[in-house]
């Protein structure tokens, strides 16, 4: 009877999810309520988790709860710490959820809400969640080894080196593009700039407190820090109202670039406890609070989605970024659907803390579903604003026009009516000088979030506070990714540099630290600078580059996973990883080809460079713009080279893996699996959650 009721309940969930998704897909005309998105997403996620993840866990991976995990076998209270599955779920989610699932869907909303929504749900259920889950499983079976180590051992030595290089290259682009999002969010915004600047002394204060006053008391320090951050968000209004201070904190794109580069360098070279770690604590709490608030706000306000399901820009002429739905929607929304970077977390800290193999399903698959839901909320927030306003915020002046009247006329001519004074009033209401041409996704998401929050609490009076809270939230955790990423990038440079000159590989050697910090900051700093001076706003070229890189890393992770599963003899179910691998390789290779060779100068890097060179040769470029144009031509060719290198690296790895697969399937080579030997868990038969006699109490494993 219980079983019949359970089946009946799941049928209802599936029916609700499918009906809501169907309604989203076929609805035309009147605006749709956001609740349809919430019901569609939750219904699909629940069914995917209940059925597909269970199938993957049972058939493909054959998770074994009798097997001791690395956390049990190597428990040292430092790296290897047996952790309650819900706590680890929170850890893992906090680590994987960055700015990507917020910014990507916001940018992809230029196609309308439908393509992005379907990709977020289907991409996560069949691609991203599977990747995170399988890589987590593979790493658990290998004592928590990293993706690079697994690629080296299971695919080939060269494969491991390529994976390591790919991670470094993609990290450089990632850091540049997220820094560009911050620059575009803070440009000419004294309130936001002041708020974010103040988070640095607050973080240092927290760092000193946690180091010298109450070592390790993270919770109390974070509560104090969050209170101070909320205070500076409010205080920013006074700064914006003061003519002197407003002038001090009104910075151009280039000034902000210099400030962020100096910040990244400092955070990488300074002791980690002083700035990086306390900022991370602040960011984690504010991130959790903001995401929870956004979900609650959407449920309470139930806004209308004003963006049409499909816009005219599905033809590839979009002002936010150029290119058709295929392949560009699939690389613009990386995090939230499939993100290669997650494989670094799934083969990093998480496998060393997991209590039993069965928990990998909730943590690997479930946390990614939650991230996908964050992406759906970002899509709703972006699509809940008037389409005209969305395009005004996200389009560069070179496309819509430099003045507000010209911009309003251009956007209205696309079929999305907009009055110039609408933007003036909105900017005034949120406490900004202007909201025109703020590409990057952060300001438009902040407007969407502020509208939802202010409808929940405070009304229009608090719109400006909510807007700046949203900007601070986005910028704060983007900078957290930036400083943590710069530091990790520094270690990668040291490790690679150590192969050439041994002293550089020594982590504590100060000249090595300074040199490697300079190298990594110079690399992403250059791409950031390139984005800031780009007349199309930079996002147009850098975000697709980042998306291609991220999805290529996902392809690398899935290739490694497929190789391991073939070696394990799971040929019958190999399509679970093989199909998303093939889809990602197809999408990224098509996108790479188009970004390099497409004849449309707005899409193809080489045709963009040639177009500008031809204009210069024809004397159409003013004399004072010659140097700038030459730099742009160089940058476009550099972007083409970077894209080609990304694609080339992955192709080499895929070819190596295909040879491996052929050898395994044709039994020409021995399938050597580098798995840790089976050790039976002490908790298998009577798993009470008390792993080490009675000392631990019930703090760890309560299911």
């Amino acid at each position: 009877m219980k079983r019949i009721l359970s089946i009946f309940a799941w049928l209802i969930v599936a029916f609700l999810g499918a009906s809501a998704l169907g309604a989203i897909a076929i609805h035309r005309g009147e605006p749709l309520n956001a609740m349809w998105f919430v019901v569609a997403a939750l219904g699909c996620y629940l069914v995917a988790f209940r059925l597909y993840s269970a199938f993957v866990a049972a058939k493909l991976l054959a998770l074994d709860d009798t097997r001791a995990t690395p956390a049990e076998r190597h428990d040292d209270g430092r790296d290897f710490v047996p952790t309650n599955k819900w706590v680890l779920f929170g850890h893992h989610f906090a680590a994987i959820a960055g700015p990507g699932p917020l910014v990507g869907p916001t940018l992809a909303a230029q196609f309308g809400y439908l393509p992005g929504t379907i990709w977020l749900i289907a991409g996560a259920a069949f691609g991203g969640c599977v990747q995170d889950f399988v890589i987590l499983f593979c790493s658990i079976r290998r004592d928590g080894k990293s993706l690079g180590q697994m690629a080296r051992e299971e695919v080939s030595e060269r494969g491991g080196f390529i994976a390591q290089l790919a991670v470094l290259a993609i990290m450089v682009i990632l850091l540049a593009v997220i820094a560009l999002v911050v620059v575009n969010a803070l440009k000419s915004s004294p309130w936001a700039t002041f708020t974010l600047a103040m988070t640095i002394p607050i973080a240092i204060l927290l760092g000193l407190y946690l180091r010298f006053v109450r070592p390790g008391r993270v919770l109390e320090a974070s509560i104090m820090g969050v209170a101070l951050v909320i205070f500076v968000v409010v205080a920013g209004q006074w700064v914006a109202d003061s003519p002197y201070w407003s002038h001090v904190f009104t910075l151009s794109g280039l000034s902000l670039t210099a400030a962020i580069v100096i910040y990244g360098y400092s955070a990488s070279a300074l002791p980690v406890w002083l700035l990086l770690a306390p900022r991370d604590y602040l960011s984690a709490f504010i991130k959790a609070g903001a995401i929870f608030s956004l979900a609650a706000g959407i449920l309470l306000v139930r806004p209308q989605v004003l963006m049409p399901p499909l816009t005219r820009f599905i033809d590839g002429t979009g002002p936010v970024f150029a290119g058709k739905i295929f392949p560009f929607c699939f690389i613009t929304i990386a995090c939230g659907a499939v993100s290669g970077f997650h494989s670094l977390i799934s083969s990093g800290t998480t496998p060393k803390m997991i209590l039993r193999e069965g928990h990998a399903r909730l943590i690997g698959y479930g946390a990614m579903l939650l991230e996908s839901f964050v992406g759906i909320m970002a899509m709703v927030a972006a699509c809940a604003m008037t389409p005209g306003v969305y395009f005004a915020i996200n389009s560069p002046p070179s496309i819509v026009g430099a003045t507000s009247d010209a911009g309003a006329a251009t956007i209205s001519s696309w079929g999305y009516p907009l009055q110039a004074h609408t933007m003036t009033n909105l900017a005034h209401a949120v406490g900004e000088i202007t909201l025109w041409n703020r590409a990057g996704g952060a300001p438009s998401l902040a407007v969407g979030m502020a509208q939802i929050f202010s409808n929940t609490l405070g009304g229009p009076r608090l719109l400006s506070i909510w807007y700046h809270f949203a900007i601070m939230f986005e910028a704060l955790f983007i900078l957290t990714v930036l400083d943590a990423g710069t530091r990790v990038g520094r270690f990668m440079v040291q490790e690679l540099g150590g192969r050439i000159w041994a002293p550089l590989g020594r982590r504590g050697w100060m000249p090595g630290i300074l040199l490697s910090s300079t190298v990594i900051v110079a690399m992403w700093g250059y791409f950031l600078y390139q984005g800031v001076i780009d007349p199309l706003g930079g996002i147009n070229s850098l975000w697709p580059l980042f998306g291609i890189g991220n999805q290529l890393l996902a392809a690398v992770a899935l290739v490694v996973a497929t190789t391991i599963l073939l070696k394990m003899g799971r040929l019958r179910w190999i399509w679970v990883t093989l199909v998303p691998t093939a889809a990602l390789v197809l999408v990224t290779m098509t996108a790479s080809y188009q970004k390099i060779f497409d004849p449309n100068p707005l899409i193809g890097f080489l045709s963009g460079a040639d177009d500008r060179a031809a204009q210069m040769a024809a004397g159409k470029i003013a004399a004072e713009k010659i140097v700038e144009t030459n730099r742009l031509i160089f940058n476009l060719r550099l972007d083409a080279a970077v894209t080609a290198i990304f694609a080339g690296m992955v192709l080499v790895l895929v070819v190596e893996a295909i040879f491996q697969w052929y050898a395994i399937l044709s039994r020409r080579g021995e399938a050597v699996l580098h798995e840790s030997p089976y050790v039976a868990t002490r908790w298998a038969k009577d798993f009470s959650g008390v792993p080490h006699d009675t000392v631990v109490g019930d703090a760890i494993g309560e299911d």
Partner: protein
Amino acid sequence: MRKAAKRTKRFLRRFWRGLREWCGDAAYESYLRSKASHGASCRTLSQAEFYVEQLNRRYSRPSRCC
């Protein structure tokens, strides 16, 4: 009523403990427990030493995603 209060109290206690574990507040306690249960011979770190060591380890590998 008393049962509900007891359940709520238990839930809140678990939530608080989970929150402390999630944010790293309880990391030193875990370390001490692990050390006691394994009887490792190396010196026990002070809370301040453990805090710095733990941070240096955590931020030397990818810990935050895009």
